[in-house]
């Protein structure tokens, strides 16, 4: 997030797109509800009539995968109505002229045909956002899990840049991170393109810096993403994998492909709490100590660095991951793994990361620091981009709408979109083993619009078969207005409804993020 969580109660206008926040980030959503109660206007763009849509002042029910068209038309209106912040554009951005020229073609009427949102509502949304003195954007994977995920995010950046809604209280471009430490995993350098602290591996100066720190020259070329690594495993090129704390088989798109990749490896080592579907394919399974059994650091969605602490003894022989990985490294004769505590590891991370340079294990314990904390004595940065962007001037990007990788046709005439539910989390390895959660949500359901239930010959509460070009799953039907006609929703939390057998139609060309939010399917009664 560019802005801290407490800023969520400050905007005049809140624009939530592709974020089912009351279910996926419930505590953050309470701040949105408070802001709305205080009088802030809420715009919600989502294919499904989620709870946020019900409390919105303006709900934009767009067709799955059409965010870029909606956002281009909103920018068109903001520009046409003269709601741009010229002073901000002059001082902080570049490329505005070409951008405004590019926008001319994207009228609300044009967008209506693509995204299904009435042109008048696109106008209203643009006027609300454009006229606000402080407008904030919140988004989640509904924006990024598309073949055009980067385009979508850049479209949001364009809106914020043209109206100067960045770098101030109650504004910003705020992705809500989905997992407790997914931010921290990236911060720590578990990325194919960046060293710790998002320092690009392609910069020779960084290569030299880390060679000095670690005693080994690392490739100047980026590595490959996990998606490509799985492809290369199928092709027989990747031969060995270490997977830590991820149930890849259930969480990743195109399960058949994923299974083939993992089975094709000469060696798969899995570190996990449980013998997950993925761990069952491993050659070596190493038991990790769990949350509540481990001391360590998490960084949350607002870049706040916080300590987690051990409260109970680890289960059986379980050990923390840093110890396990260090042991593997040492047994391979790799130097630099003489860590004796999580504090040693974290302090080394801080010493090599520009973002964490001014924190250490003890300062992390205060929970008071948002990165970047570039030097000792720096107070941290709750709000990004107040004076300058890391790249200097903000760049407007010329985005053109593209259809999803696969679109509905006669064989697969229904849009499937996937996500989480309030009660469960990911593949339910944790929530599925916690007493009571099954009382709230005992099994997976497919949310289908009541008119579709009728016209497709389904029965509310009955079973149906959901099929895509890649596979099929059987799931119980629930008739609900939350799904618009022609679009169905299912989570990926239940092992007996492995919906990711169906997904995997395409990937964003820049990030390799899978288009998990769009998958043409057929729904047949059983």
């Amino acid at each position, binding site marked *: 997030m560019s802005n801290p969580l407490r800023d969520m109660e400050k905007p005049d206008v809140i624009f939530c797109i592709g974020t089912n926040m009351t279910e996926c980030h419930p505590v953050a959503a309470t701040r949105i509800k408070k802001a709305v109660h205080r009088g802030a206007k809420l715009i919600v763009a989502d294919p499904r009539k989620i709870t946020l849509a019900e409390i919105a002042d303006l709900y934009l029910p767009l067709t799955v995968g059409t965010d870029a068209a909606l956002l281009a038309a909103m920018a068109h209106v903001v520009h046409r109505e003269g709601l741009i912040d010229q002073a901000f554009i002059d001082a902080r951005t570049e490329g505005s002229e070409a951008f405004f020229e590019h926008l001319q073609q994207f009228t609300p009427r044009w967008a209506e045909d693509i995204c299904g949102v009435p042109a008048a509502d696109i106008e209203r949304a643009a006027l609300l956002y454009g006229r606000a003195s402080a407008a904030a954007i919140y988004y989640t994977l509904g924006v990024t899990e598309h073949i055009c995920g980067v385009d979508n995010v850049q479209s949001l950046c364009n809106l914020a840049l043209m109206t100067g809604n960045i770098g101030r209280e109650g504004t910003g471009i705020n992705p809500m991170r989905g997992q407790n430490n997914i931010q921290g995993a990236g911060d720590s350098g578990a990325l194919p393109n960046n060293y710790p602290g998002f320092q690009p591996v392609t910069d020779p100066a960084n290569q030299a810096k880390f060679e000095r720190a670690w005693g080994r020259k690392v*490739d100047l070329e980026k590595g490959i993403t996990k998606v490509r690594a799985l492809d290369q495993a199928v092709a027989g090129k990747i031969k060995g994998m270490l997977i830590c704390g991820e149930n890849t088989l259930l969480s990743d798109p195109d399960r058949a492909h994923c299974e083939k990749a993992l089975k094709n490896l000469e060696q798969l080592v899995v570190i996990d709490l449980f013998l997950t579907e993925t761990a069952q394919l491993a050659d070596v399974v190493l038991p990790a100590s769990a949350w*509540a059994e481990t001391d360590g650091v998490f960084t949350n969605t607002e870049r706040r660095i916080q300590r987690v602490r051990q409260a109970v003894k680890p289960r059986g022989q379980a050990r923390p991951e840093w110890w396990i990985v260090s042991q593997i490294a040492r047994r391979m004769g790799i130097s630099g793994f003489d860590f004796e505590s999580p504090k040693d590891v974290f302090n080394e991370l801080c010493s090599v990361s520009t973002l964490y340079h001014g924190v250490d294990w003890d300062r992390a314990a205060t929970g008071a620091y948002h990165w970047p904390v570039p030097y000792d004595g720096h107070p941290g940065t709750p709000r990004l981009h107040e004076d300058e962007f890391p790249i200097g001037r903000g760049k407007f990007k010329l985005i053109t709408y593209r259809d999803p990788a696969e679109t509905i046709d006669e064989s697969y005439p229904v849009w499937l979109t996937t996500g989480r539910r309030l009660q469960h989390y990911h593949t339910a390895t944790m929530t599925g083993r916690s007493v009571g959660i099954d009382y709230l949500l005992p099994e997976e359901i497919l949310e289908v619009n009541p008119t579709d239930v009728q016209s497709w010959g389904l029965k509310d509460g009955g079973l149906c078969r959901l099929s895509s070009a890649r596979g099929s799953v059987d799931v119980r039907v629930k008739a609900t207005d939350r799904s618009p006609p022609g679009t169905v929703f299912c989570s990926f939390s239940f092992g007996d409804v492995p919906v990711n057998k169906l997904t995997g139609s395409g990937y964003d060309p820049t990030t390799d993020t899978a288009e998990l939010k769009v998958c043409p399917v057929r729904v047949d009664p059983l």
Partner: protein
Amino acid sequence: MNRTDDKTENKQPVGTINLDGAEVPFYYGETIYQVSQRYQSNIPTLCYDDRLEAFGGCRLCIVELEGARNPVASCTTVAVPGMVVRSKTKAVEKHRKVLTELVVSENPRGAKIDPLRGLASQELGELAARYQVKGDRFAGKQSGTTNTADDNPFILRDYDHCISCYRCVRVCAEQEGDFAISVMNRGFATQITTEFNQTLSESACTFCGQCVQTCPTGALGDRKAMRAESLPGPIETTRSICPYCGVGCSVDLMTKGDKLVGIRPAMDGPANEGALCVKGQYAFDFVQHPDRLDTPMVRNDAGQLVAASWDQALDRAAAGFARIRDKYGRHRVYAVASGRAPHESAYTIQKWIRTGFGSNYVDNCSRA
């Protein structure tokens, strides 16, 4: 940051009031109660929750205000320069004692509530002890009847202990924005309930547990924590961060011995300010679940995963990766770090790939 901090941040005092003989500064909009909290004046409350709009229902926080005919509720009276306030006189203390007796008479077992029931569950008991009252003086009718029909696994609705402070109603509306809890009838017939008097699962309740944690009598109880009532030993708490989404709510882990028995929201947690959701509040049993892996496992010649020692498993893992690297080259091993494990996990994994193989063949699970 709590509300008091928010109000005082970057602000100058607007004046002073005289509190029990001392001139004390206050900030714009503060109530007498909020000012008094900074000076340990120990004014009692029951219906007060720092996060909620002041309610003024319990009248325990009354103080004498010079110029006012009757004592005023300090939680709803905004400080004005020059006010002279007496919070500890015999008269107000006597009044508080009578009020406490009235409340305790509604709640005869009030002093014996297990603290596992909830964060604020001891408040009434502590008050009864402070004023040395038992509740027999006004014994008689009671409001609220325990709901035995609601068999949800999370929230006990033991309204026999209810004192109608409405903290549950207000936290659900003001803090959560869910409006699942409401009040039925008046006087001794008052009953905290849900819309249409349903079970919680039939209502708008999301089982975030906020009502349980703010209940000052334990009338609402954390059923999951209460499973450990019979375990011996004290409750210990450890401050940590929730393991679910990226919001990073601060929690206190409750343990008895080596058993994780429950979760409490941290009122001073910067991301959540006391709020939690159903997962963070109740979905913790996975930690000590029998399905947890006890030992390392390796695949044997028959293709089965069998238990192994750490030495066997680590040697096998290390030898396998070294063999692949030496036989096929540096770009044949790949690692995926977890978005759930701490930084130290991801850092060692990427360092292992970069220093062991000289490649950048590492990612985390954020792309799916």
